[in-house]
């Protein structure tokens, strides 16, 4: 039992905006009041619900491949030494599992969503997620290039496709459905891509990227999954791709959808030399479509490792940079590419990318519909979120940064014209309340009675002058796990999964089909729920 007294509470879900108020915790939950127990004096501090990351890549085969691909950054990475209550690990661009938990919790984040899981790698992914302590986890299943699903769409069997998606989500013990470059990754297996939404996908006559998107959005809504279709649009990273993104919004046709890392999808221009920000156009279209949510996918200057299921894009990036390249998962129900990357402020394209992420965060008017992410580790490491918060809350600082960009880049962006500054309450929405709502995790992202007791407490005016950089306390499930940036206790996190309704017949259909298209036995394919050691089934809507 714990009482937090004297702190200014920012709990936007419950309409609390900086009021001084006690927060009471019992049995890992927030309660209205309690007698006795210990207390924390949070005078001069601010109290936020624990951070929620709606889109990150922290576990699985691709991450492991990336760890192996960049030993040079691992050597230079922050080292976590083994102590009596902490496991050893490495930070860096692709932190090891235990270190991932320490870094997230150390920053005040208590829930993360692993955004791309191929079903064949799901077992491994859950093993890694289990080894990420301190944070609760969800994971999304890659579906937009799954041939079982695409074949059914080709045959026009949308109802059966729905049943298959439902079965696959439970088989992978996923939380939602992810679509990456719909059709494009399938085409990649033929060495091609899908650049237009309405042309047939390589290997199919009727299936188009638009059809995959609209069908999956419809299926996710019909299955009443708590998180909408999580969509990585076609033509990621390509100059002029804003047209594709806006077309995609129309194709979704009123269904719910979450647009991932929209920064990478808001470019104008015809080629790399003419690339410019189209954040105003994208934000206008997005603001008008209330069925959509998004995350920013901000780019910060410095090292990154690009990891995405978007195999064809990664091949292009490899050809552009000449850096290392990993191409994997083409034998899976998806593809994957990995290319280490350095974003440089003197580079025109990188400077535009940096600005676009911030512009979208400032131009999208409803903070409930846009979440703070860097698409870790694609745009920057997740531990750099405090830098983004500083850029959003301090317009003067932000404009000073814009002035450092090459003059040519400054002409391609609108960031210098934006005066908006995020309020404390809006930061709480952006980092916690909003992503929790977007994920459909009603017990997260707020401090009302019944919520999970995940609380982050910051000094309002820290000695280093930089608010938000290191929390004074982080409380996870009612237990103090971080004090002054140091991990004090390492509790295991839970994994939320969904079990959507599914027709009993569909297993028979898949059992018959399976030996013809897979090389493993059907019985070994689904991940047993017992494999997840801290699983909790989240109800569908």
């Amino acid at each position, binding site marked *: 039992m714990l009482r937090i007294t004297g702190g200014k509470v920012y709990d936007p879900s419950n309409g609390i905006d900086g009021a001084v108020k006690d927060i009471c915790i019992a049995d890992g939950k927030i309660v209205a009041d309690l007698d006795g127990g210990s207390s924390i004096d949070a005078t001069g501090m601010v109290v936020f619900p624990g951070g929620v990351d709606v889109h990150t890549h922290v576990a699985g085969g691709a991450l492991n491949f990336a760890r192996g*691909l*960049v*030993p*040079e*950054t*691992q*050597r230079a990475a922050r080292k976590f030494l083994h102590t009596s209550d902490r496991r050893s690990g490495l930070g860096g661009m692709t932190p090891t599992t235990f270190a991932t938990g320490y870094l997230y919790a150390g920053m005040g984040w208590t829930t993360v969503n692993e955004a791309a899981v191929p079903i064949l790698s799901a077992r491994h992914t859950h093993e890694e997620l289990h080894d990420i302590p301190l944070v609760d986890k969800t994971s999304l299943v890659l579906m937009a290039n799954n041939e079982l699903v695409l074949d059914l769409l080709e045959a026009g069997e949308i109802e059966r496709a729905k049943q298959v998606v439902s079965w696959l989500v439970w088989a992978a013990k996923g939380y939602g459905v992810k679509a990456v470059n719909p059709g494009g990754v399938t085409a990649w297996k033929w060495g091609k891509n899908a650049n237009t939404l309405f042309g047939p996908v390589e290997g199919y006559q009727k299936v188009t990227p638009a059809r995959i998107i609209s069908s999956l959005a419809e299926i996710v809504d019909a299955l009443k999954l708590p998180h909408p279709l999580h969509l990585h649009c076609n033509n990621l990273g390509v100059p002029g791709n804003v047209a594709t993104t806006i077309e995609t919004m129309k194709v979704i046709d009123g269904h719910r959808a979450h647009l991932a890392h929209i920064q990478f999808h808001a470019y104008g221009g015809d080629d790399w030399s003419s690339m410019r920000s189209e954040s105003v156009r994208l934000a206008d279209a997005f603001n008008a479509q209330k069925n959509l949510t998004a995350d920013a996918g901000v780019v910060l200057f410095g090292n990154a490792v690009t990891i995405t299921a978007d195999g064809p894009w990664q091949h292009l990036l490899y050809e552009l940079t000449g850096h290392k390249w990993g191409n994997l998962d083409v034998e899976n129900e998806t593809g994957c590419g990995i290319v280490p990357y350095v974003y440089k402020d003197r580079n025109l394209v990188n400077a535009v990318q940096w600005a676009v992420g911030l512009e979208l965060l400032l131009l999208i008017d409803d903070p409930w519909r846009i979440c703070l992410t860097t698409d870790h580790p694609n745009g920057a490491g997740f531990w750099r979120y405090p830098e983004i918060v500083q850029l959003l809350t301090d317009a003067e600082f932000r404009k000073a940064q814009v002035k450092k960009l090459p003059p040519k880049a400054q002409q391609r962006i609108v960031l210098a014209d934006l005066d908006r500054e995020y309020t404390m309450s809006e930061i709480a929405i952006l980092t916690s309340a909003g992503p929790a709502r977007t994920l459909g995790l009603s017990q997260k992202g707020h401090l009302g009675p019944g919520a999970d007791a995940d609380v982050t407490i910051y000094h309002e005016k820290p000695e280093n002058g930089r608010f938000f950089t290191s929390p004074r306390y982080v409380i996870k499930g009612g237990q103090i796990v971080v004090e002054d940036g140091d991990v004090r206790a390492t509790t295991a996190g839970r994994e939320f999964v969904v079990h959507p309704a599914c027709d009993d017949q569909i297993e028979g259909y898949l059992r018959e089909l399976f030996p013809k298209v897979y090389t493993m036995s059907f019985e070994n394919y689904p991940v047993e729920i017992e494999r997840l050691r801290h699983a909790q089934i989240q109800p569908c809507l």
Partner: protein
Amino acid sequence: MPVTLVLKTPPPVPLEAELLTPDAIAERSRADICALPVNLGKRRMRLDDFFDVDGERSDEIEIRGDASRVKWIGRGMTRGRMLIRGNGGMHLGSGMTGGAITVTGNVSDWLGAEMKGGTIRVQGNAGGQVGAAYRGSLNGMSDGTIVVQGSAGLEVGMRMKRGLIVVGGRVRDFAGLQMKGGTIVLAGGAELRTGAWMVRGTIVALSSISLLPTFAYACTYNPTFLNLYAKHIATLGWTIPFDAREGGYRRYTGDTCVPGKGEILVWTGF
């Protein structure tokens, strides 16, 4: 007076002695030097558990004994002199930026790996990856000089960017692998695939070596720069020929499969 370290008995497993550098020792008293931490496996020990220490506060260090299982000697050193009377272990002079190391015996792999400056001389043989990039890194040594009088192992100068490596004896496969610049002088020949994937830089072979088919013959000549460079190399105690009356260099460009603009110069006057 130099600080003298005499190895009591060679350690049973490799000893990691990253602080065995002039930088760490120059300002320390004898007692502090004795207490410098070294790692034997997972156990943290003291330097004087393995060495008899004599002298203090000097950036000249002399190590005596068979230190072939002592790793990281001179790691990242920026100044001073180290003399190793005996053998040295892996990663000797790794990442060093200045100063000089002399080894009278043999050394192991990763000699001067990713070094940025300074001079290393080895009177015996070296292992593999001399002046190379560590696994994953894009660049190997970026400046400095390594002279090995004996032979060397695999991947000598792998991904090196600048600087000079001279090997008196024979080197094994893949000398100059993915080399990006700098110079390697192979005085005693090489095994297979010398210069594979090299992008730029110069490999000077003073004896006949087998070449990859992706190196194209350009001409036979006596490059002017070698005339100058020979004078520099002479200060290191080596002579390389450049007199047209004695012979010329056959120039091969490559590796054309990258495609690269490096060169292998093979002396014809032997």
